[in-house]
């Protein structure tokens, strides 16, 4: 029972009398939009793991939401991420063992008294800085940097409120910090209702500024890996806009269409990724640091639907994305929430994703070919298909409180995984990815 210092003796007496009459605790009344709502606390712990010794993450997250009444809502989210494991460095497997330097390697200046050398695939011997750590990869294995680790802290805050009768505005800010990356973003949106709240038109903008401080410095893009030519810190920014229409189609069906557009400028390359160079037989002759354009423009169209089918709620959406790097994508996502009674529900989830490769994506480079201006072997820019299947279980209790468990499994398969070159025959050059997520959530009204 919510008591504040202004609860009169008469009100207390009435509450007690009603309690006695009805034999049950007297709940608070919640009438919106005037009334103030209790604080809603949403917490979760997520565990993410990729197969084959790749990345794993533990992520605790806390979200607080407070409605001060009249739809004035403040939201605060705090996220902490800890990532460990191995991450592909972009090179392809080889018939021979391969050796790489970790990102902290910065120069070839030998340090007297501490001899350390690195032999390139073509037999050249190069002296290295003592602090460079090397790692080796067995023949046939996908090269992963096993020293990959990162930790991320992020904070988000948002405020939304009505502006007049049919208009709603919101503004939010975001700050995040990683070992090698800092980001600040601000987002604003305005929406307006028409047709007795059956139609809502919304528009928003998004601004993001990032500072990238790669460990060891940002490599000069496209240069020979063994030279370990590294520069300093980098930055990039993003400006974007969104326009959307939400429409109540029938008593049981709400639909939404969104168009988004954004432009990024600055350092868009992954400083830790390289691309293998092979000769005509497929044997490795060396590597290059990847190099991506310094601008990227993306557009997407999203159509979402929420349908009430008796006791179940279906969420079905389609998104089509494209950008000026040549990546086109299609996503179909479906969720079905099924009420099992007694405040318990399950929600199966399925997602299908397909993407075409970036124009400058290459699984590897041929030494004989002219060096392209832009190149990347990052499998996230390749042509691939991915599917996700998941199940969420939610148990509600005491009003708005809920305990939930979510399990999801993700599989990604690349289109190009092999080569006809002699020394690469029989090798799976892009084994794809399998990962699983387990997340426990607890939502509590305070």
């Amino acid at each position, binding site marked *: 029972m919510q008591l504040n210092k202004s609860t009169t003796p008469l009100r207390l007496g009435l509450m007690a*009398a009603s309690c*006695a009459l009805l034999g049950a605790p*007297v709940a608070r009344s919640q009438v919106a939009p005037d009334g103030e709502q209790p604080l809603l606390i949403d917490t979760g712990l997520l565990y993410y793991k990729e197969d084959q010794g790749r990345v794993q993450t533990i992520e605790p997250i806390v979200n607080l939401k407070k409605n001060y009444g009249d739809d004035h809502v403040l939201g605060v989210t705090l996220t902490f991420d800890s990532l460990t494991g191995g991450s592909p460095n972009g090179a392809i497997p080889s018939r021979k063992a391969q050796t790489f330097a970790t990102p902290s390697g910065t120069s070839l200046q030998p340090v007297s008294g501490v001899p350390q050398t690195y032999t390139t695939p073509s037999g050249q011997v190069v002296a290295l800085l003592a602090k460079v750590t090397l790692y080796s990869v067995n023949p046939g294995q996908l090269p992963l940097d096993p020293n990959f680790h990162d930790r991320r802290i992020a904070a988000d805050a948002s405020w939304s409120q009505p502006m007049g009768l049919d208009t709603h505005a919101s503004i939010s800010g975001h700050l995040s910090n990683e070992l090698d990356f800092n980001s600040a973003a601000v987002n604003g949106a305005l929406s307006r209702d028409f047709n007795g709240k059956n139609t809502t038109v919304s528009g928003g903008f998004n601004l993001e500024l990032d500072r990238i401080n790669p460990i060891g410095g940002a490599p000069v893009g496209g240069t020979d890996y063994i030279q370990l030519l590294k520069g300093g810190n980098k930055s990039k920014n993003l400006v974007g806009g969104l326009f959307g229409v939400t429409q109540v189609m029938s*008593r049981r069906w709400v639909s939404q269409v969104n168009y988004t557009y954004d432009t990024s400028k600055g350092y868009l390359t992954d400083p830790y990724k390289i691309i293998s160079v092979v000769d005509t037989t497929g044997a490795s002759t060396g590597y290059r640091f990847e190099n991506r354009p310094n601008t990227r423009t993306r557009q997407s169209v999203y159509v979402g639907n929420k349908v009430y089918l008796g006791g179940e709620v279906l969420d079905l959406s389609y998104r089509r994305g494209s950008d000026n790097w040549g990546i086109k994508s299609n996503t179909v996502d479906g969720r079905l929430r099924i009420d099992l009674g007694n405040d318990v529900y399950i929600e199966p989830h399925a997602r299908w994703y397909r993407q075409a490769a970036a124009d400058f994506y290459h699984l590897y480079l041929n030494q004989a070919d002219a060096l392209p201006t832009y190149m990347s072997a990052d499998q996230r820019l390749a042509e691939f298909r991915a599917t996700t299947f998941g199940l969420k279980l939610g148990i509600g209790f005491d009003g708005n409180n809920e305990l939930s468990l979510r399990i999801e499994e993700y599989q990604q398969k690349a289109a190009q995984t092999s080569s006809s070159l002699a020394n690469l025959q029989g090798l799976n050059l892009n084994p794809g990815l399998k990962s699983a997520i387990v997340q426990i959530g607890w939502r509590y009204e305070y």
Partner: protein
Amino acid sequence: MRDSSAKLAVESRDGGIVAVCFLAMASPCEVLIETGDVERCRALGMLAAKEAWRIEAKFSRYRDDSVVSSINRSCGSPVEVDDETASLIEFSAQCHKLSNGRFDITSGVLRRCWKFDGSDRLPSPAEVEALRALVGFEKIRWEPPFISVPSKMELDFGGIGKEYAVDRVLAELVAQFPAAILVNFGGDLATNRAPASGPWRVGVERPGSEREAAMLLELSQGALATSGDTHRFLLRDGVRYSHILDVRTGWPVPGAPSSVTVAGGSCVEAGILATFAMLRGADAESFLDEQGVRYWCMRS
């Protein structure tokens, strides 16, 4: 015995809600449940209707076989009452105390001289005085479980019966089927929680503006009760006499609003606060402000 099956209407509403409608306590009643199972809804609706009819039958002063009628016929002899009746009497006793005597379930006899039919026929002071002698909860002997009501005095649960029924029905339905449920008996309503599609949208009629668009509230938990009825009044020499009687004088409370709607944790609590506010007449709003509850007052 009513032919129950004929009296229920089931219809589906927006956002995955099914409604069961019936008549009880001289009001249109509806039970809204968030579910796709129409048969389940019909069964729950029948449960709700039966409970509403049961309470109506038990506490109605119009029925010879009701508990209230047997108490009112007892001529001063002690009557043993069951737990439910005892709770209601106890609750009424508390309300009598908390309202400093303004709320009184023995005030029903005053309706014999006050007929609020919109006419200008006021009773004479002598008539009012005669009946006022028969009013006063302090004259009742309440020694649970025995109640002794002196001759010619009467108990009337009309002021709390409907709200009590709303709360009881909601509790019973939620115990059977914990979905989001809203119980609405003629404007006195309560809900356990909001459906997934958002808070319940409740229209509160503004008497006097006839069928004009009601005030729309969004309710996610708790109850609303409305006191007042613009059709029950008397008008003479330009003075409007509302049907809310001050038991200490036997006359209508001056300056009472035409209707008060209050939000509370339970329908019973909301209803009593609305009634208390009406009994304060011109001070209705300041009384409710003091109590720190959400309310909407209409004055014509």
